[in-house]
């Protein structure tokens, strides 16, 4: 991991815009990635979905190019563009062959600073998001995740899909999108990362000139995340299997020690094929093909949740195993704990290996206040944490009530679903 951070240089562009350069001399690729504060936690009541709509519309034309021309220019460079938002950040990333780095930067700056948000394009993307919202439940696992988030976050910003809320989206238009864009695409609300094979001085000059018009606004505050709830939200569908997601509160992303503890214990519980849930539920009981757990750290209330898809007749049994395995984490063995640390380190290497994902990671860590080199130091925290310390964190959170999201077949009845 060290080798990737040794060639990484933090810097500022004119006007204070943070930029992180990371050099890979042998790479054939060049990638530029911007992370900015937006998403559910930055949306006011009545504006749920404004982040997703802004991002969808961002590449639908600039002051110099139509939507079609933007796509053509990108793809003729052999590049891919990724524009998205999630619960508390947004991303604009272009990745392509290194020899095209100048054109990629030029295109990137034009998209970020001069989007035209034409009425027709914004309306089309709005209709697309509305249709997408109506069909999120088509995938039973995703439907269960949505129910779990409602059970855990109540009716707060994080309980909504990142696509927004129907009644809010319907009221949004190109004017609200332009205003939101102006607010969030500002120097103090974003961080850039540049990765791959390139000349740093040249890239710096191009960015200074291409992003010169990026405004410097007042700092934007995100809305706080409310306390966790422990409800059960269930829904029935005409499907074969049942999906269950069961979770507890967990340390926030800024809480480095708690986060390290939960990263390790989450992997003990349900990360990978040698995890307790996988062994109990799949290998020993043969109940499920897809079973595991996820730890999702937010800048505030966060969660750790176990999940599985299984025959509805086994719902009671799976709930029992989940509860038991949550409890049994308290008896984690030292060997098991140390092995999982190695597993996490290896997984980090896999993320860093790819130029585009490393660029996005650097920008994300720097933007969220963790620091661009967070992964390097976090690896040390993981390495040094002891079982007893991790279990203190576990004890603090895991005794809280659990929230559940369930998708079950139509005619199946169970006390949990009433």
């Amino acid at each position, binding site marked *: 991991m060290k080798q990737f951070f040794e060639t990484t240089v933090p810097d500022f562009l004119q006007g204070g815009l943070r930029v992180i350069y990371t050099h890979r001399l042998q790479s054939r690729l060049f990638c530029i990635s911007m992370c900015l504060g937006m998403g559910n936690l930055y949306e006011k009541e009545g504006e749920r979905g404004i982040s997703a709509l802004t991002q969808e519309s961002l590449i639908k034309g600039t002051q110099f190019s139509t939507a079609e021309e933007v796509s053509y220019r990108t793809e003729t460079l052999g590049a*891919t563009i990724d524009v998205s938002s999630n619960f508390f950040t947004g991303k604009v990333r272009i990745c392509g062959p290194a020899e095209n780095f100048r054109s990629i930067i030029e295109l990137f700056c034009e998209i970020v600073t001069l989007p035209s948000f034409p009425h027709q394009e914004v309306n089309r993307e709005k209709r697309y998001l509305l249709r997408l919202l109506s069909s999120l439940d088509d995938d039973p696992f995703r439907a269960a995740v949505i129910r779990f988030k409602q059970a855990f976050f109540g009716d707060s910003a994080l309980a909504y899909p990142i696509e927004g809320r129907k009644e809010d989206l319907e009221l949004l238009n190109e004017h609200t999108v332009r205003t939101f864009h102006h607010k969030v695409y500002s120097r103090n609300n974003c961080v850039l990362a540049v990765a791959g094979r390139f000349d740093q001085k040249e890239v710096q000059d191009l960015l200074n000139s291409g992003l010169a018009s990026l405004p410097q606004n007042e700092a934007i505050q995100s809305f706080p995340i409310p306390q966790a709830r422990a409800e059960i939200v269930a829904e029935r569908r*005409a499907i074969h299997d049942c999906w269950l997601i069961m979770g507890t509160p967990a340390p926030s992303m800024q809480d480095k020690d708690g986060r390290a503890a939960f990263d390790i214990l989450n992997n003990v519980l349900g990360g990978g094929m040698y995890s307790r849930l996988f062994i109990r539920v799949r290998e020993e009981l043969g109940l499920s093909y897809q079973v595991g757990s996820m730890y999702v750290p937010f800048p505030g209330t966060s969660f750790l949740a176990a999940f599985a898809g299984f025959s509805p007749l086994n719902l009671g049994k799976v709930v029992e195993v989940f509860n038991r395995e949550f409890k049994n984490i308290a008896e984690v063995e030292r060997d098991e704990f140390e092995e999982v640390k190695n*597993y996490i380190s290896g997984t980090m290497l896999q993320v860093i290996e790819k130029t585009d994902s490393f660029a996005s990671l650097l920008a994300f860590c720097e933007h969220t206040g963790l620091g661009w080199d967070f992964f390097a130091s976090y690896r040390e925290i993981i390495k040094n944490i002891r079982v007893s310390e991790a279990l203190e964190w576990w004890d603090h959170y895991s005794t809280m009530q659990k929230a559940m999201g369930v998708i079950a077949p139509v005619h199946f009845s169970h006390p949990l679903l009433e």
Partner: protein
Amino acid sequence: MVILSPDAGGSSAGIFFHKSMMGERMEQKRHLSASLGETGEIFPYSKRVFSSGIRVLYRYLSSPLVCLSLWVRAGSSDEMPEKNGLAHFFEHMVFKGTKHNPGVQLIRRVQAMGGNINAGTSLDTTDFYILVPREFWKEALELLTELVKDPLLSHKDIESEKSVVIQEIHMEEDEPEERLARLLYQQVFKNTSYGRPILGEPKTVGSLSREDILTYKEEYFQPSNIVLSVAGDLEENVLFSCAEEMFDSPYLSKIPEFTRSVTFLEPGNCKVEVGMDIERTYGAFSFLCPGFRQDMSYTIRLLSTVLGQGIASRLNMQLREKAEIVDTIYTTYSSYQAAGLFVIWVTFLEGERERVEEAVQTELLRIVSQPPDEKECKRSRNLLKGSFFQTMETVQGNADMFGRYDAIDTVDRICRFPVVLNSLRGEDLVEMTERYLSWDHAVSVWVGPERHA
């Protein structure tokens, strides 16, 4: 893990037939290079074929990780109909314990090294890989070898795993895109071994016995039927000698004969509709095409990119951006040993299938009436090359691509791909469209809301 479309995205390898390895010289070592258009870069690799018949490929990559990928030329299309699901079931069973690492100990050891282990089954191949930090590559090689040579295959584990696979089948049936793909393959490859589901049916999986699994292993998991593909930063001579040592067994039985001859009947225009408890409609138009071993597969791949890869592709521009009659539309070209499949995938919420069908048909005809000009071809070529670079950036991408190609055909094709790509023009795409994308032979499959079915 099931791999129905190994080259989804139209950018990486396909699956195809391999030449007999018996004629290859042992200790063969080659360095190949190919010009990648404007970049002029090369993709060197080393290859050796050992006395047991195993082929070992190594590609150097400066990385803290090493990926070891083992490809066996045996997949679901090698099964007898009544044993449908056997190849995939075997892939599951090797993770249930081996001679020296019972239960999940082998997985535990891999994860303890900071590694990942997984496997996939396709119509023609089964692959297993371990991805580990560089310092553990030798131990990983031992474990990967043990995984395919010495699985325990206990009766108890076999019975327990059947319910897991049947749950996997149910999961596939509950997920509209998975169900659509399964129906599509069943329809296009009707009455052939390619038309049977990789996971099998609950009934066939339920009837598999330990003897079935052992016979399958004996027949197909022979060194001469295996390719070991490794990418990372290690000493190649050490790798080759370790690999030779680990696969030193002589031929145990007959060597599988791979001169498969499957006759595919070009389907007539037909439509299949299925209803589910969903909101959106998921559709696919598919056309039977040549498999990977033919050079025209490069042309079809480029055609797929012109039509349905990227925002500026013809189908996306016309149907999503302009007419707004679909929410998503893209194409894939999946190539197999004996045949290929060109598919146009669409989704929409409110709309008319007939209108979508008509618009797709119009775009196919427009390839002939308004052939792609150089600007359009350049976009598609560069997009394919960019995607190729991204695949070749990771050790896993390299090990997978080299392993897959060598398992069924020849690695040379990887190097030839960008070269041939540069030579293709609009008229080549017209020819492919006329030959293979005729509406008279289009198979349409729709999975939609129950009320519309």
